[in-house]
């Protein structure tokens, strides 16, 4: 207890700007590289101080009050109800209350009104959207790989939804951790559970990977490094990456430990190698009924293919008899660069070819079986990007003829033909294709059909052909697409797990001694899970991370919860619990929270509830004079921190004010259809958490307001106030659109039509800021409107300026 107070006094006694220097110097000197570091100690025995019992029953408050007393500071006053209401809505759901929601609470005079409000918010699906996003920051979640050639990760959104659902259902954190590290290895009772667990295993594969790296050994070691880093940071608040090249300089993590873990991840397959590599995709489990249906569909499809093949053979035979044949583009001679493609369906043979080079050429030549008149039909595939002026020259017995072919079809990409006409052919015939310069030119084949028939059974054959073609058409039309088996990005154990060699100075190609697979030697004892020889060890790793002997995980999680609620952690370096991180301002309090987390079976909601219901959380954001003087940085949480709205909350609040926000209580599962990251246009409506996270393209509204870098695991976002943000709010099309909609909504019939300007202003303030305007605010706005009308400025435009100013204002952008 003395020690705790000494730490606090030490913290408060040193000047603001050099706090960190002194602190880190202090901790590094005290036990450089040693294992005797507070974070590695077992959770301490609980001994809540008596504190000021008159003030609060909450254990949390007693710890805090004890520190305040020791230092001699007074807490702030309690926050007023409107302030508290707004604060708790943003903290738990990321949204402000609507006018109706506000009224419900403000008119509830029961003493437990706030506790019931907290329960309502914790039960709301909005909770998981808010708190799930906190975890997505840590999981460096994204839907594209970033790196040199950014690849889209089309099933990553399932992982996002898994996280949101996990927070909504208050999945115990130990289970949550186990599923993300080894979900693919866990047994399951129901198909749903199996799907969830496999989806969770995307965690290891979601990192920023440069799949085109040509040195594949290097690539594998980089992926392993990223995985070790994110596991260390997300679950234990440790920066393990340092030990890749040398023993950790500050924490007791030798390189051996790093490669012991690397062996586990090296025995886990994440990558599929190719020139540009890719990731492991695994089918989601399906029910036995689904399996039977699929097998039936599969059999039917096979049957259909067999029949079609048979009929096609008959058709070919009849055509041959009739003297008709088709040359595939493979048989054309080409000059210049022609690329093969299969993207527009319905082509002849195995593919078609295209070029964008006007100087390219393609030539079909063939020996004419019998001098006569023939129809020549050109095959291609149409598309909006095609040339409208492809020139096709037919050399026939009487000279040559050139036909222009328009291959562009603005509506529908499809296989297409063009009848070039009837020609007299003898000996050798030649058709040359000259591409246009206004788009792509396609070659897919050439059909030659005699016009006069010489065979006796001509009529019979023609009618047979027509019938067969009709049947083929019908059969093809009846074809139902097989439901693709859903595959998700995940990992799997290598068939032959193996230990890994230390890489000397981190060089992927410099092999040192082999290290048996395992975890951090620091936190292991005889009870620790063991890596079985025939397994990668991932499951054991997951078990170890949430095991009794590892005190880090519970502390890290409890500290993050505190951080999200108070704006600062008890340990302010939320992602670094090592020697280079900061000390907890009160270790007893942190351990108490960790203890409570475990007591609630690792469920977060009861812990959040307890913290939010403490008096400390409900304090005003204006410090008492003593706290302002003695603890200006608020290390002791004697008042509430004023916080800037984070990117998503700002986005959501703007859309809520404009009436555009779509809240969906049903399963929010949705998948953005993205063809390429470059040029992707974001559309707005759902909450920001559902916007696709692309590593090379972040929506400006998020990027401007410190949306985390999806390449890095970040437990604490920066919160800057920059001129670029001001410019965004003043000039961006995003904000303009929200302002227009919000103004239309405000001035529409049901809210403010036929009402006075002052009444409109009240509606606007209640909606946007959750309070009525002050006298002065009314005066400023009314004066502004009056000036506008003197200058004959449209009332709507004047109101837009007011709405935008409110969105840009301090009370909208900050929570007190």
């Amino acid at each position, binding site marked *: 207890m003395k020690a705790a107070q000494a730490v606090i006094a030490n913290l408060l006694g040193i000047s603001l700007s050099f706090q960190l220097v002194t602190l880190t110097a202090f901790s590094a000197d005290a036990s450089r590289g040693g294992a005797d570091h507070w974070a590695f100690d077992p959770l301490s025995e609980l001994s809540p101080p008596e504190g000021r019992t008159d003030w609060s029953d909450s254990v949390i408050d007693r710890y805090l009050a004890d520190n305040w007393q020791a230092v001699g500071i007074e807490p702030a006053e309690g926050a007023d109800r409107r302030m508290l209401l707004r604060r708790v809505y943003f903290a738990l759901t990321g949204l402000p209350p609507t006018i109706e929601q506000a009224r419900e609470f403000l008119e509830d005079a029961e003493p437990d009104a706030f506790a019931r409000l907290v329960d309502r918010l914790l039960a709301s699906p909005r909770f998981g959207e808010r708190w799930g996003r906190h975890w997505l920051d840590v999981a460096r979640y994204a839907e594209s790989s970033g790196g040199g050639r950014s690849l889209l990760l089309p099933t990553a959104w399932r992982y996002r939804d898994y996280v949101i659902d996990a927070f909504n259902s208050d999945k115990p954190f130990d289970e949550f951790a186990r599923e993300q590290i080894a979900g693919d290895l866990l047994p399951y009772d129901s198909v749903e559970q199996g799907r969830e667990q496999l989806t969770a295993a995307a965690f290891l594969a979601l990192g920023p990977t440069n799949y085109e790296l040509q040195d594949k050994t290097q690539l594998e070691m980089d992926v392993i490094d990223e995985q070790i880093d994110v596991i260390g940071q997300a679950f234990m608040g440790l920066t393990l990456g340092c030990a890749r090249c040398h023993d950790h300089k500050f924490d007791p993590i030798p390189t051996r430990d790093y490669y012991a873990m690397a062996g586990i991840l090296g025995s886990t397959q994440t990558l599929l190698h190719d020139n540009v590599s890719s990731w492991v995709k695994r089918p989601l489990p399906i029910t036995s009924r689904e399996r039977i249906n699929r097998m039936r569909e599969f059999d039917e499809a096979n049957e259909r293919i067999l029949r079609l093949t048979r009929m096609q053979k008959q058709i070919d035979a009849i055509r041959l008899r009739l003297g008709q044949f088709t040359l595939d583009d493979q048989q054309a001679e080409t000059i210049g660069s022609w690329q093969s493609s299969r993207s527009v369906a319905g082509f002849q043979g195995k593919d078609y070819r295209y070029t964008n080079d006007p100087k390219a050429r393609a030539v079909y030549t063939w020996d004419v079986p019998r001098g006569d008149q023939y129809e020549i039909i050109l095959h291609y595939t149409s598309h909006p990007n095609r040339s409208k002026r492809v020139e096709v020259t037919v050399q026939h017995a009487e000279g040559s003829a050139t036909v222009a072919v328009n291959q562009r079809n603005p509506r529908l990409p499809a296989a297409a033909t063009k009848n070039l006409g009837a020609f007299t052919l003898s000996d050798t015939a030649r058709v040359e294709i000259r591409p246009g310069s206004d788009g792509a030119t396609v070659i897919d084949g050439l059909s030659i059909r005699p016009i006069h028939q010489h065979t006796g059974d001509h009529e019979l054959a023609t009618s047979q052909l027509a019938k067969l073609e009709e049947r083929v058409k019908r059969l093809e039309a009846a074809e139902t697409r097989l439901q693709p088996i859903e595959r998700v990005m995940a990992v799997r154990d290598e068939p032959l797990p193996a230990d890994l060699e230390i890489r000397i100075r981190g060089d992927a190609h410099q092999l040192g001694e082999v290290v048996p697979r395992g975890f951090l030697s620091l936190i292991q004892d005889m009870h620790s899970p063991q890596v079985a020889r025939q397994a990668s060890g991932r499951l054991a790793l997951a078990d170890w991370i949430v095991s009794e002997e590892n005190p880090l995980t519970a502390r890290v999680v409890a500290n993050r919860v505190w951080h999200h609620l108070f704006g600062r952690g008890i340990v302010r370096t939320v992602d670094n619990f090592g020697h280079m991180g900061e000390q907890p301002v009160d270790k007893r309090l942190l351990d108490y929270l960790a203890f409570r987390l475990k007591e609630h079976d690792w469920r977060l909601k009861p812990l959040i509830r307890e913290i939010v219901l403490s008096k400390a959380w409900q304090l005003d954001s204006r410090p008492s004079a003593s706290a302002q003087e003695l603890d200006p940085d608020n290390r002791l949480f004697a008042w509430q921190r004023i916080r800037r709205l984070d990117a998503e909350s700002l986005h959501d609040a703007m859309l809520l004010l404009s009436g555009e926000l779509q809240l969906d209580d049903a399963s929010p599962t949705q998948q953005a259809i993205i063809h390429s990251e470059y040029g992707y246009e974001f559309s707005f409506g759902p909450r920001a958490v559902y916007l696709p996270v692309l590593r090379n393209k972040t929506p400006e509204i998020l990027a401007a307001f*410190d949306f985390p870098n999806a390449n890095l695991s970040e437990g604490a976002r920066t919160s800057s106030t920059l001129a670029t943000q001001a*410019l965004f709010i003043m000039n961006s099309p995003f904000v303009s659109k929200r302002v227009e909609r919000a103004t239309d909504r405000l001035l529409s019939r049901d809210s403010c039509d036929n009402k006075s300007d002052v009444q409109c202003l009240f509606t606007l303030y209640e909606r946007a800021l959750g309070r009525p305007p002050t006298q002065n605010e009314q005066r400023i706005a009314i004066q502004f409107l009056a000036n506008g009308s003197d200058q004959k400025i449209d009332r709507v435009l004047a109101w837009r300026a007011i709405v935008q100013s409110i969105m840009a204002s301090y009370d909208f952008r900050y929570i007190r």
Partner: protein
Amino acid sequence: MPFDMLSIENVNRRHLLRQAACGFGSVALAGLAHADAASESAQSMSSGCHHRARAKRVIFLFMQGGPSQVDTFEYKPLLEKLDGQRRHFQDARKLAKTGQAGQERIMKSLWKFSHYGETGHAVSELFPHVAGQVDRICFLHGMHTSGVAHGPSTLFLHTGATNLVRPSMGSWIVYGLGSENRNVPGFITIGPSSANGGPRNYANAFLPARFQGTALGRAEQPVEQMRFRHIGRSGGMASSNALNRREDFELLQALNREQTARLGSSDEAEALIRSYELAWRMQMHAPQITDLSGESETTRRLYGIGDKPTDEYGKQCLMARRMAEAGVRFIQVNYSDNSSNPRWDQHNNIEKHADHARAVDKPIAGLIADLADRGLLEDTLVWWGGEFGRNPFAQNNDGRDHNPKGFTHFFVGGGTRPGYVYGATDEFGHEAVSGRVHMHDMHATILHILGINHEQLTYRHAGRDFRLTDVHGRVVEEILA
């Protein structure tokens, strides 16, 4: 100068930031993060951090795709003699993929080399205008780098890492030196590509957000259409709004003041109000640097503006000069596009190099001459180069594959030795054999020129101190005047 130069607001604070910005105080900077986040304070450094600076700013002419050294600035007569013959080469791509290399067919340059200037350096006919400036140029023929594919090597060029997420060099420089003029961004990239790392090439990674590069337009966008985001020429609130803009802005600030008065002010509220004031000033000033209308016809012609092949890059280069004058620290002028086989990437048909050379030659020469005329070469470092070079042997009959093992970059000004040639590749032009300069060394050297010790410019993140040069980097003293 058309821009308001910085006024010093708070000497103590500035002093603190100055230390913080210069590396050894990186921990102090982290400690300041919360206070600093609340206010964007201007920092100015005119004389370097750790030693005397030779240059205050950099203009980087990025040749995306990898121009061929043996077809441009490093003459290898042996290629003509041995053209078509097969020899064993340690090809970087084959080695990375298979661990083995083999026989390759030597391919001579399609272009004639002639000697230029007093120094008599040989330049191919691809760059006749740059050739006219050789006496001002310091060539580095012994460049080599990491990565073989565009993505990794482009990221390495910009961030010093092929795969790991690291801050861009421009961000490091602005972090180290601050900005000369707080009404314009300190790090601007003109027409950046969205491919091969895209925004990561000018992103701040773990450095604070204010050090990120500001993109002006994007690759393949006509220069006329390039604008800073959210800074309209007319400025002001709600673009669809016809109100007097100044009045709108005053309304906003009046409401903000009223809100802070209601419950008492706070650091956060004051930072917010200041951020709007700064935004207003930037809005007034930034559009001027992209506005070329005041440039004389002579100047425009010097840069090749008005002639179709050189018009676009010429305008970009002229904008770069205006940015240099305005005090932007790091200006990148991209010759790039958005494809995964970028501009100079001639795997076949090396003849296309001629199109690219034509587009950039006159603008670059014009920029060098113009900077020299205006005395700006004294404290501006011009840096030219791509993510790697190309092989002296053939690929796909008439092309050349990537070559990270030997290629050319060049410097002009900024206290580098004019008319100087440093380093060389082997007799074929394949691997750097003398005066070898790894991209890490390049980074260290540029920081050195700016007065920064690359080993001391650090930032603490995730428990350790990071550097642009990681644990590498040698300052190439030999090229300093």
